[in-house]
């Protein structure tokens, strides 16, 4: 079981070696990996939509989709067919090129980041030695595409959504990158496979700086892929659907797909960087990886089912006034734990972080909730 997928691939490559020259074997190995990812992305996305609808429904005391197939398992297919057969509408005032390109360009990086995700032991499609950097770089291109979509569709709601999206993504991108730095310092590598292997003894999330880093990364990741409570760019009750207001049919489906694949990759990367990746006892590594990832995805949906949306200025405040300084303070804390020996290697970073949280909370106390007292009259 452990090496199931690797064996399948080896089998296929060996079969190819019978008929192809050596360069063809390398090429076919690449193609097999690429095809696996191309198939996996949409499949994951389709069933994430079903999972989201089911989870939200259950949280809201509803049943959720249950008509198409047993337990609604064919619902994603039905949705896909519906999306494909819908009329393709393009607003007459839209910029044709931007409007046409945006949905395609948004889906491509979302698929491409799958290449560096270690799905299991030795199961990274491309074990780049700059894996994390590659991920960050690719996911930040989304900003541009979203703005293309919003500008191209010539809709005021879209423009508002696009503006929100750009400001949000730029703010959170910075924090996201800085929050990863301690991990890179500890692992000494940017390769996702190496980072996972370096956590064989202890997950990074089990250290104080690692836990903080993990939380910041996860929060920023949510903001990156526009999930609740940071779903301002597509805030339904305010700006209809934000940047994809004018999109329908398959174009809309591509946006939707990109969003869900981003959710998956953010959760997968959180697992990789902080939660020990595919490491775990008994079960095969890829199963461990999926279990951890889906637990995180459940948390994402859980947030969506519970939390109200932040407002743009609060969102910026959270990123710049709280998360960013905290992420920066986390770097020396992580360094301390590297250079000190046991009791201090936990205590000192913990102290540093607690002091910084306290100080930051003090400076941000304007955001704290007021306690209200209500009186009654007769």
């Amino acid at each position, binding site marked *: 079981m452990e090496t199931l997928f690797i064996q399948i691939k080896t089998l296929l490559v060996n079969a190819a070696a019978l008929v192809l020259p050596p360069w063809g074997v390398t090429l076919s190995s690449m193609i097999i990996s690429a095809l696996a990812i191309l198939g996996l992305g949409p499949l994951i996305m389709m069933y994430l939509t079903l999972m989201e609808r089911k989870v*939200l429904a259950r*949280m*809201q*005391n*509803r049943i959720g989709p249950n008509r198409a197939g047993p337990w609604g398992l064919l619902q994603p297919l039905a949705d896909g067919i519906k999306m494909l057969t819908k009329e393709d509408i393009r607003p007459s005032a839209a910029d044709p090129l931007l409007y046409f390109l945006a949905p395609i360009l948004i889906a491509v990086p979302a698929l491409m980041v799958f290449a560096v995700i270690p799905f299991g032991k030795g199961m990274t499609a491309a074990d780049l030695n700059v894996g994390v950097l590659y991920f960050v770089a690719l996911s930040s291109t989304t900003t541009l595409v979203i703005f293309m979509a919003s500008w191209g569709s010539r809709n*005021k*709601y879209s*423009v*508002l959504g696009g*503006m*929100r999206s750009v400001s949000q993504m730029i703010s959170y991108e910075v924090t996201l990158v800085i929050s990863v730095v301690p991990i890179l310092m500890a692992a000494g590598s940017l390769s996702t496979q190496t980072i996972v292997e370096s956590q064989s003894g202890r997950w990074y999330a089990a250290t104080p700086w690692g836990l903080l880093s993990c939380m910041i990364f996860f929060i920023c990741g949510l903001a990156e892929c526009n999930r*609740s*409570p940071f*779903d*301002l760019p597509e*805030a*339904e*009750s*305010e*700006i*209809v659907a934000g940047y994809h207001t004018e999109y329908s049919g398959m174009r809309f489906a591509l946006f939707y797909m990109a969003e869900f694949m981003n959710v998956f990759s953010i959760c997968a990367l959180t697992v990789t960087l902080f939660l020990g990746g595919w490491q775990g006892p008994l079960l095969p590594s890829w199963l461990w990886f999926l279990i951890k990832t889906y637990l995180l995805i459940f948390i994402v949906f859980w947030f*969506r*089912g*519970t*939390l*109200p*949306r*932040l*407002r*743009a*200025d*609060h969102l910026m*405040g959270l990123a710049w006034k709280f998360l960013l300084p905290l992420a920066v303070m986390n770097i020396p804390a992580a360094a301390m734990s590297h250079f000190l020996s046991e009791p201090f290697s936990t205590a000192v970073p913990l102290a540093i972080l607690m002091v910084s949280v306290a100080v930051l909370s003090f400076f941000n106390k*304007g*955001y*704290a*909730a*007021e306690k*209200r*007292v*209500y*009186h*009654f*009259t*007769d």
Partner: protein
Amino acid sequence: MKNKTDTPLTEDFDTQTLQINVGPQHPATHGVFRMDLTLDGETVVRLKPVMGYLHRNHEQIAENMTYAASMPYTDRLDYFNSMSNNFGYALAVEKLAGIEVPERADYIRVILAELTRIVNHISVIGFLLNDLGAFFTPLTYAFREREKILDLFEEIAGSRMMCNYFRFGGVKRDLPPGLLERIRTMMDVFPRFLDEFEALLTDNDILCLRCQNVGVLGRELALNAGLSGPMLRASGLGYDIRKVDRYSIYGRFDFKVPVGSKGDVYDRYYVRVLEMRESLKILDQALRQIPSSGDIISRKAAPFLKAPRNFKPPVGEAYGRVESPKGELGFYVVSDGSPQPWRYHVRAPSLINLTVLEDLCIGHKLADAMVILGSIDIVLGEVDH
């Protein structure tokens, strides 16, 4: 939080305001309401409410029909609480014709009006939280409870929302057997639900951030604009017609009127929660005091049930008002002695509460405008009557 470094960009950089049109088909406008918004970035600089998409000529229609025939039309004013609307209209006509209401009917009326208040407040809060972006969870919880009360209404009046249950001088029919016990069971469970509902979001930091000090409605403005209901009480004025007029039998019950301190969205939210708890107290007392039998319609008015056309109140005018969940709901009826009212006018709380929308929204963000609109609690059927 006020941004202190807010210098106008216009000096060296040419910016334009953005005019957007929210509604009449927009997820947050609670019906067919349109707001003509001018935004500077995301900040609202001008807001013009446009209403009338649901105008149905309610008053004119009522002037061309018998008094009783208007009763089902009042259901459709504020379609969330038809019982309160019925109550107001019945009070006005009873005043006009000098009809006394039997005791049991009075109790039934009060019980139903308070149930309606719970239905309204719970769904309004659900919608408000939904506007805040809590993706339908509070709303489905609220609607689950609303459903239970609507089931009771269906059992009593035959319809869930368009109850058409009150008649001049009483109510249409007696309660079905065993109904009071069912109300009692519902009431026993409800506080627990309310606790859960509050646990969901009342203390939530995001909610507090979004709601506190947003859309602050000062006492002065609230008074001058003629607001009423939870809107006014959240601004710190404990004005409740149930206490002021003590109409029907409200004088007999021991309940309090919750009052807010700031008048922001959070206060308006929380005052409604507290009002539900007070309504439960009234229900509790009413269920204990209600006479087990008795007339449900006054002797004087009973014949007109079968022949509404013969109902001709004496020449005169009357204004009946109730504390509907949205505020002061008043009906002004003038009779010229014919079977049809000579003049019929509705003081619709939704409409009047909506007039302060622009004052509340200016200077806030677009996202806040939706929340403020949600907190005003409008029903377009009533706004556009």
